[in-house]
Every structure is written in structure tokens, then in C-alpha cells.
């Protein structure tokens, strides 16, 4: 009898929710489109706006070039920037972004290079810190000047009877031994756990409000309470619907993200800049398993809290601050140096964030995973119990 009634309530809430345009948009359309859109925008900026900013021939001035004719000539022949005649108001021009950088030579630069080789002269580059184009020119100038300097070094070595290879004592080679999964998993594990936790929460928010404060506001609370369904059956039916929406939102978002990254990765591979993104099915499955009880905790807690509210507005004012309580521990995956141990495994939300990070990187501490799964289930049960108790309190249900 109880299970049947829970099923009837669940099916009705599902029918009602599917007819609600707002829920369809926030729980299906937005999750499906959100990540692809964000990534497309980022790619667009990275591939068109930034290169464009960098490719326009930026302007550079040379100050005191009389003492450095050879270097000045090399700089003028450099295709990365355009040397314009020097003017005294260069600082203003840099600030107004009309000029990208100025290279200042000390007096008698090249003469001193020959006659006083032991003296370290300073070339000054004036630039606009943090401004993209100015930074680009800064790097190009430094690289050009460095090339000039290397030629001087080769000349001096030849004069002393040394070959350049004798100056380079040893080389360094970097060899990555972490598998592709671990490398990308580490990157993914940095930000994805946080996203997943936030998605679980936001996915549950709207249905939780709609099924409690919304019922009060629309006046249907009394109607359903006069029917033979038990309060606990009513709560469970609503709870399962909220959980369903939360999990669906999260799953859709992650799937659409995965597809976008795969397609994007394939496209980039064609252009030559391939990235290997490897997430194993096993890690995805285990993370999903860890997230479900967390979604259950959120669903039950949101249900209990928004039941106190008289209407949507009030519900939103309660649930808004709740987001912060979740965001901060959720960010654990992004905090360097925070490693999972048996104590942290009991801290809600934080534990799921950290363990998801490890799992994406291919690390499976099964005992901690089990501990976290169980503790999250306990928290979910406590939250659900609180929700059922709330539904039995007349002063909460009939609060006007």
C-alpha cells in the first residue's frame, strides 16, 4: 500500500513537472546547452579574438638607438612588430594603448659590448603590464634581443677559442610517466567535481520549491492532505521526484560536456593541436555512484527547508544562502594540498569533492570510497527523516 501510494504521488509529480516549462528549461535544456556554449565561446575567443589581437602589427619605439645601429636594424627587420619614430610622449601613448612598447638602449651600447665585455648593460623595455597586446610585444622584443645577444656570445667564444657546445654543460629532458588518463584526469578532477556538486544542488532547487512552497502558494496543500495518502508517502513521492530531476540535470550536463570535449578534441586534432582526454568508464561509474547519495541528501534537505516557506520568494531567500554552504566545501577539489584522509572522509560534500578528484585521476582508495558512500547515505537518511518530520507538523504545513 505504501509503496503503491509513493509511486502514484511520484508519477503525478513527474507528469506535473514535465508539463512545467520552467523545469524543462532549467533541468533539461540548460544542462544540455550550458557546457557546449561555454566551451564554444572560450574556443572562439582563444582562436579568433586573441590571435587577432596578437597579429595586428603592433607598434614599437626605440629610444637612444644611435648607440645600437646593428640591433636597431635587426629589430626593424623583425616581422612581429613595426618600429615607429620616437616621440617624447611615449609613456602617454603606451597608457592609451596607441603604442605597445618602447626599448631603451643605454648610451654607447654596441661600442661597450666590444670594448667593455665584462660590464652588464641594461636594456629597458617600457610596457603596459597585463594588457594582452603589450605583453605579446614584450615577449617578441625580448626574444629578438636575446637572439642578438646569443650571436654576441658565439662571437666572444670563437675569439676565446671555444665552441658554443663547450659552454652548454648538460641538457635536461622531461619525461612524463603518468598515463594519459592520470594527466587529463588530474585536470578534469580539478574542476569537474565542483561542477557536478553544484549541478546536483541547483538541479534539485527548483522542483523542491515548486513541490512545497509552490503547493502552498497555489492552495493545493489542503486538497492533497484531505486524500487518503499518508504524509510520509507524500514526502517520499516528492523526494523521489526531486532526486530524479537532480540526477537527470547532473547526468545531462556531464554527458553533454563529455560529448563537446570529445568532438572539440577531435576537431582540434584535425587542426593539429590534439588533446587526449581520457576518462575511463569505470571512473565515471564510480563517481556517479558517489554522487547519487549526495543528490539524495540535497533533495531531502531542500525539501525540508523549502517546506517552511509560504511562497516561492520566501523559499528562494532560504535556499540562496544555502548555495554558499555547498559551494565552499564543493571547491575542495580545486584546493591545492588538500588530500583525502579518513577524517576528511566524514565531512559532507567536501569528501565527495575530494574522492571524485582522486577517482578521475585513476586513484581508487576503496576503503575511503566505501566510507564516504556510507556516510553520505547516512546524511541522506537524516535529511529525509527531517523532511518527513516537517511534513507532519501542522504549523509548518499551514503557515500563513
Amino acid at each position, binding site marked *: 500500500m505504501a509503496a503503491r501510494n509513493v509511486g502514484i504521488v511520484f508519477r503525478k509529480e513527474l507528469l506535473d513537472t514535465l508539463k512545467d516549462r520552467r523545469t524543462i528549461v532549467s533541468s533539461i535544456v540548460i544542462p544540455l546547452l550550458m557546457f557546449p556554449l561555454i566551451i564554444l565561446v572560450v574556443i572562439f575567443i582563444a582562436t579568433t579574438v586573441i590571435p587577432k589581437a596578437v597579429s595586428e602589427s603592433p607598434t614599437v619605439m626605440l629610444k637612444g638607438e644611435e648607440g645600437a645601429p646593428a640591433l636597431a636594424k635587426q629589430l626593424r627587420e623583425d616581422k612581429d612588430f613595426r618600429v615607429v619614430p620616437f616621440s617624447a610622449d611615449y609613456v602617454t601613448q603606451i597608457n592609451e594603448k596607441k603604442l605597445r612598447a618602447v626599448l631603451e638602449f643605454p648610451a654607447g651600447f654596441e661600442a661597450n659590448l666590444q670594448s667593455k665585455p665584462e660590464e652588464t648593460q641594461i636594456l629597458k623595455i617600457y610596457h603596459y603590464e597585463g594588457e594582452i597586446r603589450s605583453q605579446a610585444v614584450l615577449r617578441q622584443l625580448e626574444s629578438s634581443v636575446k637572439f642578438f645577444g646569443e650571436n654576441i656570445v658565439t662571437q666572444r667564444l670563437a675569439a676565446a677559442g671555444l665552441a658554443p657546445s663547450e659552454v652548454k654543460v648538460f641538457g635536461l629532458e622531461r619525461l612524463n610517466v603518468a598515463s594519459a588518463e592520470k594527466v587529463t584526469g588530474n585536470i578534469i578532477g580539478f574542476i569537474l567535481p565542483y561542477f557536478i556538486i553544484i549541478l546536483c544542488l541547483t538541479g534539485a532547487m527548483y522542483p523542491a520549491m515548486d513541490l512545497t512552497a509552490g503547493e502552498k502558494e497555489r*492552495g493545493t496543500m489542503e486538497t492533497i492532505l484531505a486524500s*487518503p495518502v499518508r504524509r510520509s508517502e507524500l514526502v517520499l513521492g516528492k523526494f523521489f521526484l526531486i532526486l530524479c530531476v537532480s540526477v537527470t540535470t547532473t547526468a545531462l550536463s556531464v554527458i553533454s560536456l563529455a560529448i563537446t570535449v570529445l568532438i572539440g578534441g577531435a576537431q582540434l586534432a584535425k587542426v593539429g593541436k590534439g588533446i587526449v582526454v581520457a576518462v575511463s568508464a569505470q571512473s565515471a561509474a564510480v563517481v556517479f555512484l558517489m554522487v547519487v547519495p549526495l543528490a539524495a541528501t540535497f533533495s531531502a534537505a531542500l525539501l525540508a527547508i523549502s517546506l517552511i516557506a509560504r511562497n516561492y520568494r520566501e523559499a528562494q531567500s532560504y535556499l540562496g544562502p544555502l548555495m554558499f554552504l555547498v559551494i565552499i566545501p564543493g571547491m575542495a577539489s580545486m584546493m591545492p594540498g588538500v588530500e583525502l584522509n579518513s577524517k576528511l572522509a566524514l565531512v559532507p560534500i567536501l569528501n565527495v569533492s575530494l574522492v571524485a578528484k582522486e577517482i578521475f585521476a585513476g586513484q581508487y582508495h576503496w576503503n575511503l570510497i566505501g566510507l564516504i558512500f556510507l556516510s553520505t547515505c547516512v546524511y541522506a537518511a537524516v535529511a529525509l527523516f527531517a523532511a518527513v518530520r516537517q511534513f507532519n507538523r501542522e504549523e509548518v504545513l499551514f503557515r500563513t
Partner: protein
Amino acid sequence: MIEAQGLTKIFKDKKRGEIRAVDGVNFKAQPGQIYGLLGANGAGKTTTLRMLATILQPTSGTAKVAGFDVVDDPEKVRSNVGFLSTATALYGRLTSKEFVEYFGRLHGMDEAALAKRIGEIFDRLDMNEFRDRRCDKLSTGMKQKVSIARTLVHDPPVMIFDEPTIGLDVMTARVIVQFIRECRAQGKTVIFSTHVMSEVEKLCDTVGIIHNGKVLAEGTLPQLRERYGEQDMEEIFVKVVGE
């Protein structure tokens, strides 16, 4: 059959302290009869009816509805009651049919019996025109019919109406009044609350005048007329409450 004995409901308000919304109410309503609960706003009518429908729990006292105790067997009571009030709104996104079906299922009806019953009710109340229309797209009169259909779907022996004609136009109110009469004709126990005197005179077999949570006077219309020496219900009411 409805029996209330010493039915009491006390609300605790932070500012005003204890409020005895219903204070030791006793009455009996018989099958095939209409019992009217007459009182001003805030007299305790809605709270009394909500307790009978097990929406609220009594603080003390008992009530038996259709032979079941409201505190001990609330689910059995609800299975035997059809409850209608101005506050019993509809689920706007569901169609009339989906709405009535939901409650039919909660009453334990299987799909076949439910479909047949809905067919009967929708025919009788002339609702087929808006059968598949969303409830938030219905007129007030249509919405009332849908509410009535919901209370009828499980054919309960007891009907509880809380100010059922408030805010309705004359024609729609007549539909409700007619429906209440039909319930009586079918042998159901009917109790309804109102503060409209003409309804009391039109419908009630027994009247209970409630004020400040207490039933101050009770009886059939002829009995009350004789006891208080007035023909007009309003005059009787004023006399009773004025005491």
C-alpha cells in the same frame, strides 16, 4: 454519520498566546441529512471541518466519521470522506481528467474502475467539454465542477463542504446547492459550513450555530424558530450570538 464529542483545537500563537479556535464542540450529523454549521468569520467552522476531514489533529476530544475515529484511523476516515472547500485548489498543469484520476488512484481504485467512474461523473456533471483542458485554463464554474468530481470519484458516504459557494456567481452557486441536495438524496451524510443565511434556510435539516469555537445553539429550523421566537435565520443568529 458524523459524531463530534468535546472536539477542541488550541493553536499556539507567539504573540497572542493560546487560541482556542474550537472549544469542546459536540454535534451529530445523520445520514441522508444536511447539517449546517453557521457562524461568522473566525468562529471555528473551518477548523472544525478540517478536524473532521483529518487535515488537522484535535488537541483534545474525539470525532467519529463514518464509524472511524479521526485520531486513530485517519486514513480510513479520509477514504470515506469527500472534502471540498474554497481553499481546495486544483493542480493547474494537469487536465481535468488527470486531476480526478490522481485522486481516484490515491483512493485505491484500479484503472478500469477509475475510467468507468470518471466517465460517469463527467457525464453527469456535463464536464466532457473540458475533459482534456488544463485546470488553470478553466473558468471558476468549471473548476468547481472538477473539485466536485474529485470529491465524488470514490463515492464517499460522508461529504464535508467548507463555505462551498463563497465567491461564486449565482448560477455556479446554484449548481453547488443542487449537488449538495443530490448528496442528501443519495443517503450521504452532509455537513457544510457557511455564513450565508439563505443557504441555511434552503438546505439544512439541522443547524449548529458556532461562535468563538463553541456551538451555542443546535436544532432543526422549526425548533430554532420556536426556541428563539424568530422566523428569519439572521434574527435567530443575532439573538444566539448576542447572548
